[in-house]
């Protein structure tokens, strides 16, 4: 991403995930992939395609519907020195794994005095799309940010997806790896050779002096479009992707906030006691005088019908509106929705 040129290969997010895993499995025989349906013909929307054929059923296997035990199994295998990648097609299903993830994976290294490690990657997808509804579309990374001992990564583009997944696999700690269904088809320049995106380094995706937009996971893309809309009315937005939420690179966000004085944090989840709250609170603790605003899901379960679902999520128009409100508190402004859609098409692909 940093040094794109026309000769570089582009890859979709889903292909980048697949390539990261395949390369790591090639490099390290201890890495293996397990999870419901990782070995069927749909292959978790393609993200595990080809792994079974290449690495065999001992290293790529589907599981019974037993998320709780399977998480424990992954933890036990990790303690024994293997490096499991446990895949869930929906992040919502991690709610069945909380005991193992929070009471065991997160605490084992500490609680056992450093005598065991849990090099576990938990891949899961935020399922937003087509009426997935309340139980199939949740972004729950905020829950995991609350718990010491877990790392949390949520890349927004194919380049970071590959590099941060490789970093997660090589990490000796449990890493909650957050994907977003709507990111799967997006493309970016992705080097073929394996590379590591260090966890804990935010990325400045666009610079500007008037307001900082921090976008988590797929909301980064919405922020980029919002920045375009803001540019049209003369507001220069800086856009930052935290990439990893634990560890969290507050220095980069803080530097930007100090310059712009205004920050909108846009999360792919609820705002209350979530990632947005954490970033906002950290800013507020270290700086005074900032104008701060969080956006996220409406404070409701996710409805299925599109007439309500559209209002459930932040979008470029609502992000731009919130940013504008920080800058010009008196004057209400909201981009025309049709124009906002158009801008989205122009601003985004290829990433």
């Amino acid at each position, binding site marked *: 991403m940093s040094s794109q040129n026309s000769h570089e290969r582009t890859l979709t997010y889903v292909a980048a995930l697949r390539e990261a895993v395949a390369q790591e499995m090639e490099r390290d025989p201890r890495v293996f992939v397990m999870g419901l349906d990782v070995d*069927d013909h749909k292959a978790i929307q393609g993200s595990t395609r080809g792994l079974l054929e290449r690495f065999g059923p001992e290293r790529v296997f*589907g599981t*019974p519907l037993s998320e709780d035990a399977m998480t424990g199994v992954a933890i036990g295998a990790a303690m024994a020195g293997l490096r499991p990648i446990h895949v869930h097609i929906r992040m919502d299903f991690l709610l069945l794994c909380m005991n193992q993830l929070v009471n065991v994976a997160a605490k084992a290294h500490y609680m056992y005095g450093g005598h065991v490690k849990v090099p576990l990657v938990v891949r899961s997808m935020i399922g937003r799309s087509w009426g997935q509804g*309340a139980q199939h579309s949740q972004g729950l990374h905020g829950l995991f940010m609350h718990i010491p001992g877990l790392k949390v990564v949520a890349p927004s583009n194919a380049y970071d997806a590959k590099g941060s997944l490789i970093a997660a696999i090589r990490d000796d700690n449990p890493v909650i790896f957050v994907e977003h269904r709507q990111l799967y088809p997006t493309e970016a320049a992705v080097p073929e050779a394996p590379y590591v995106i260090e966890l804990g380094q935010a990325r400045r995706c666009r610079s500007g002096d008037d307001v900082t937009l921090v976008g988590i996971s797929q909301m980064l893309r919405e922020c980029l479009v919002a920045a375009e809309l803001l540019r049209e009315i003369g507001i220069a937005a800086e856009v930052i992707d935290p990439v990893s939420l634990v560890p969290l690179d507050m220095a980069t966000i803080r530097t930007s906030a100090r310059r712009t004085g205004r920050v909108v944090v846009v999360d792919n989840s609820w705002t209350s006691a979530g990632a947005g709250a954490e970033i906002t609170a950290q800013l507020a603790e270290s700086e005074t005088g900032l104008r701060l605003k969080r956006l996220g899901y409406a404070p409701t379960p996710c409805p*299925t019908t599109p*007439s309500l679902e559209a209002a459930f999520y932040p979008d470029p128009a609502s992000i731009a509106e919130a940013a504008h409100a920080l800058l010009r508190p008196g004057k209400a402004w909201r981009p025309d929705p049709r124009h906002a859609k158009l801008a989205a098409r122009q601003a985004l692909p290829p990433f």
Partner: protein
Amino acid sequence: MMASVSLEERQRIYRAMQRIRRVEEEVARLYPGDHIKSPVHLSIGQEAVAVGICDPLRAEDIVSITYRGHAAYLAKGGSLPAFMAELYGKDTGSAGGKGGSMHLIDIAHGILGASAVVGTNIPVAAGYALALKREGGGRIVVCFLGDGATEEGVFSESLNFAALKRLPILFVCENNGYAIHAPTSRRWASDELCARVSTYGIPATLLAEGDVLAIRAAAASAYATMRQGGGPAFLECRTYRWREHVGPNEDYDAGYRSRAELEAWQARDQIARLGAALDGRDRDRIDAAIAAEIAAAVAFAEQSPFPGREQLTSDVFAE
């Protein structure tokens, strides 16, 4: 088995199964048009289980259904217009458009809301049965679950509790042989499900043939015992999903199962079997009524409004 069932009953059972089949075929037909606003898990091929189980229930009994719940919803008497409107995401839907196909509910007809998280409905149904037991009026709960759901720990936990408290609940495992694309042979260490359940002291019966009248007879006999405080019971009903796991199409080219499997089940399709034993004119009359009812439900769904924006934040909390 058929001989002991009256003509009226056979007509009713045929009608119930055929109605479900036709509704789901209509859903499949409409689906590509994007009027239906959420993923659909069709039961086409599995109707005999829902109907065999629900036919002997009383109106005041309760059923707990899954995301593959169209069949049981309709068999228990759930409103067809509200169903169709819910699939369309409309304000008049069974959940006001907030639930979609995976979260059908019709409390007035004793249908508890469906969950999209596998197995989640099992203890909830047991809790409802606990309340009915305290009520003491002889009402019972039927809890539908898939073969995949039996792998979730909550299934075992719920069996133990239901047996311990002698709850009036029938667990019905609709064993269609697959969880998404994984056959039971790759998920189950053994197929001794009924034997396992019976170690909790729960009478467990395997119905391997998909015969609607056999299912109905087994259910009716379980209900009679349960209404008198006999505690929980369990039925494993083998069946077969004709369409893909989610969505309107067939998927025999995907490689995970063969069309021969389908054909074996189609050969004993209960709708065809019961239909063939009816008088042709009776059958046509029934079919025509079903078609009219479905057309009306689709029209109702089409003409209903979408929920207004203000609905987004309503009903988060009960007041």
